[in-house]
């Protein structure tokens, strides 16, 4: 497998003090933590940093790792037999238990030694959590959707692996972004006679071609002609429930907001549907159009820049 240079990952010298390593970890963890980071590949970076810290912060693991000597990162590497003789490791890793092959081959067996996984029998399987990206229609109408989820589980050798699972889930109508759908009994099942945990699916919406989602409310930007806004009109408008005839009040302008109560996402309580007007200008391509505009300019004394003092 590939050698990992933990000092390089953390950006510290090989003789860095524990305090320096801790400081480096704090800085990098804040930078790459998936919940707060905007960096590309934050999760992968965070995993690397966490693994490096797990080794370098522990004097025994660090000493054993140093014994391996310096190698080029990514270089093919095999630990010599008895490389860790004389070292006592203890303690399990942090919650994020998916380590690289490199780490597992060096420290994996040891970190599980203390735990004695076979001896520990939970009274209930672990809950699993996943995030999925749904089309908005799934929430507006309800309906089933298929997902491919990557679930962590222990294989025959007790190593943590990711298993691909395809689930067909009935999406409850009115579910909101950030909410969890709980699927009872779909979590981990450590043994056939132990009740399984639950699976929680956190919902996120894919961008919708027409509507912007904000909580339980939906917003549509609706283009209208200048006369429709100025004089008022009834126009055909798409809504989640179908096309409706929307009454535009006279003296509307760009940005005027119309509210259709209860026509947003059908949650409890239902959200609202907002229509925000955009004034679309008819193009002045032919002589008739240009004449119409010129007539309007003459008939309507209008300085849109009056407020700017010009």
């Amino acid at each position, binding site marked *: 497998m590939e050698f990992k240079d933990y000092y390089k990952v953390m950006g510290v010298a090989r003789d860095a003090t524990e305090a320096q390593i801790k400081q480096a970890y*704090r800085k990098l*963890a*804040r930078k790459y*933590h998936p*919940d*707060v980071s905007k960096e590309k590949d934050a999760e992968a970076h*965070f995993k690397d940093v*966490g693994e490096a810290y797990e080794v370098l912060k522990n004097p025994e693991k660090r000493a054993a790792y140093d014994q391996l000597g310096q190698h080029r990162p990514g270089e093919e590497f095999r630990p010599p037999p008895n490389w860790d003789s004389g070292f006592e490791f203890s303690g399990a890793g*942090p*919650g*994020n238990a998916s380590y690289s092959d490199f780490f597992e081959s060096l420290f994996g067996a040891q970190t599980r030694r203390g735990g004695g996984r076979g001896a520990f029998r939970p009274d*209930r399987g*672990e*809950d699993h*959590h996943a995030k999925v990206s749904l*089309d908005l229609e*799934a929430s507006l109408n309800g*309906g*089933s*959707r*298929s997902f491919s989820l990557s679930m962590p589980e222990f294989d025959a050798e007790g190593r943590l692996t990711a298993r691909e699972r395809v*689930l*067909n*889930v*009935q*999406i*409850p109508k*009115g*579910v*909101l972004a*950030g*909410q*969890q*759908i*709980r*699927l009872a009994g*779909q979590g981990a099942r450590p043994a056939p006679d132990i009740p399984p945990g*639950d699976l*929680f*699916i*956190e919902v996120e919406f894919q961008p919708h071609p027409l509507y*912007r989602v*904000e909580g339980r409310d939906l*917003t549509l930007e609706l283009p209208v002609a200048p006369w429709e806004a100025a004089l008022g009109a009834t126009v055909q408008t798409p809504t989640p429930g179908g096309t409706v005839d929307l009454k535009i009040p006279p003296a509307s302008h760009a940005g005027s907001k119309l509210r259709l109560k209860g026509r947003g996402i059908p*949650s*409890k309580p239902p959200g609202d549907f907002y229509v925000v007007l955009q004034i679309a200008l008819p193009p002045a391509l032919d002589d008739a159009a240009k004449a119409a505009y010129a007539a309007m300019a003459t008939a309507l004394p209008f300085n849109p820049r009056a407020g700017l003092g010009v």
Partner: protein
Amino acid sequence: MANSDQYALQGSILDDSVELTLQDLSRMCAVEESLIVEFVEEGVLSAVRVSQQLHFSGGALRRARLAVRLRRDLEINLAGVALALDLMEELEQLRRELRMSRP
């Protein structure tokens, strides 16, 4: 992506109308009950007291799990976690508004 509804798994929405007990929440977060109690004391989570027991709304699960991760991965104390969560919520709200106002 839509399929026959017949064999689909039925789920329930963990929204604010669902009430979670202290035991529920700590199990769902895979932490000790004492940590969740600390979360409430430090203002990381809000709870209601129902006949001597702490009860949480369904929406608390997401916030609690986030708090557990921040505390564990960033090694910040609970006062820091509470502040971080509030700021993150405000940031999300501002980003949403920014997206909405873009032409």
